[in-house]
């Protein structure tokens, strides 16, 4: 319990830092804090991919899981609706990377067919726990299993959208409670 609380507090501190960073789009992160980095995961088609697979493209990175009935589909729907507000030219250079925090249930096939429902620029990424752990830590993501009454489980997880520039650098955050209009506007303001 105490350990869980510490994790949550730790997450809160990181998130506060991230929120401060979000207020200063396109500015350098405070020294010592970087967001994002190299990864080696598997996409929905079963192909091995890395951060280099999406070089030259804007990336919206969001962590979640397919068995999540509320927060994840709500956020992915909002991103999809925000995409619809952009011009075809703006959309073409954006990919939405949905990275699972639940690799036990999210196989490449499961996450691949899940994200397709939200739009053509959505890519589902999964991998072994050992491959996902460094990705979660490079994005300062918190994810933990949480038992439900019936023996099933849900995942507590950071619900923030990271905006990564074509060169791979972190440029800002999108709150998952934004309206599609506000999200599209902020994306354009960030340079996408």
């Amino acid at each position, binding site marked *: 319990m105490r350990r869980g609380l510490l994790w949550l507090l730790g997450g809160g501190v990181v998130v506060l830092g991230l929120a401060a960073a979000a207020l200063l789009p396109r500015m350098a992160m405070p020294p010592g804090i970087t967001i994002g980095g190299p990864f080696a995961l598997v996409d929905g088609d079963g192909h091995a991919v890395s951060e280099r697979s999406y070089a030259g493209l804007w990336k919206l990175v969001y962590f979640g899981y397919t068995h*999540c*009935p*509320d927060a994840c589909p709500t956020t992915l729907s909002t991103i999809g609706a925000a995409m619809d507000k952009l011009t075809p030219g703006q959309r073409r250079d954006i990919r939405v990377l949905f990275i699972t925090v639940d690799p036990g249930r999210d196989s490449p096939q499961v996450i691949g*067919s899940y994200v397709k429902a939200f739009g053509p620029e959505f890519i589902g990424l999964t991998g072994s726990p050992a491959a996902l752990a460094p990705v979660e830590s490079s994005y300062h993501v918190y994810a933990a299993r949480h038992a*439900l009454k019936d023996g099933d489980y849900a995942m507590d997880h950071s619900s923030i959208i990271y905006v990564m520039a074509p060169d791979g650098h972190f440029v800002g955050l999108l709150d*998952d409670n934004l309206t599609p209009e506000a999200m599209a506007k902020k994306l354009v303001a960030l340079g996408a």
Partner: protein
Amino acid sequence: MANMRVAAVALSLAAGMVLPAAAAVQVSGAWARATAPGQDEGAVYLSVTSTTADRLTAVSSPDAGMAMLHETTQMGGMSSMQDMDGVALPPGKTVTFAPHGMHIMLMDLKHPLTAGSVIGVDLTFQKAGTVHAQVKVEKITATGPQG
């Protein structure tokens, strides 16, 4: 005159005895998102208004093996899903179940939820008894009941 008053009282008593049970709780705008391939859980959103103080204590659905009251809580960018034992309904106030908040979680769905179809939920209230509501399934990208 006196007779009329008695009749009026009797009428209002009779109405009072019949109507509240039927009209005390109103469920409206129930919707759910279509499920993605392979997904066997879903979330139902709706609004509940009770004319008297009541409490939603249980939910079930003929379309799911199990239904539960859940709340997604957002704290400092963290999303967590909590079980709820019940939801208080203050008199006359509409309580809304909406994305990123309270929802009825359907687990072990008996069939995929497809956009355009209708499923059912049964809501059990402490005083009003069980109320059945029809739930419109919207497309997976819907952010509200009209999708």
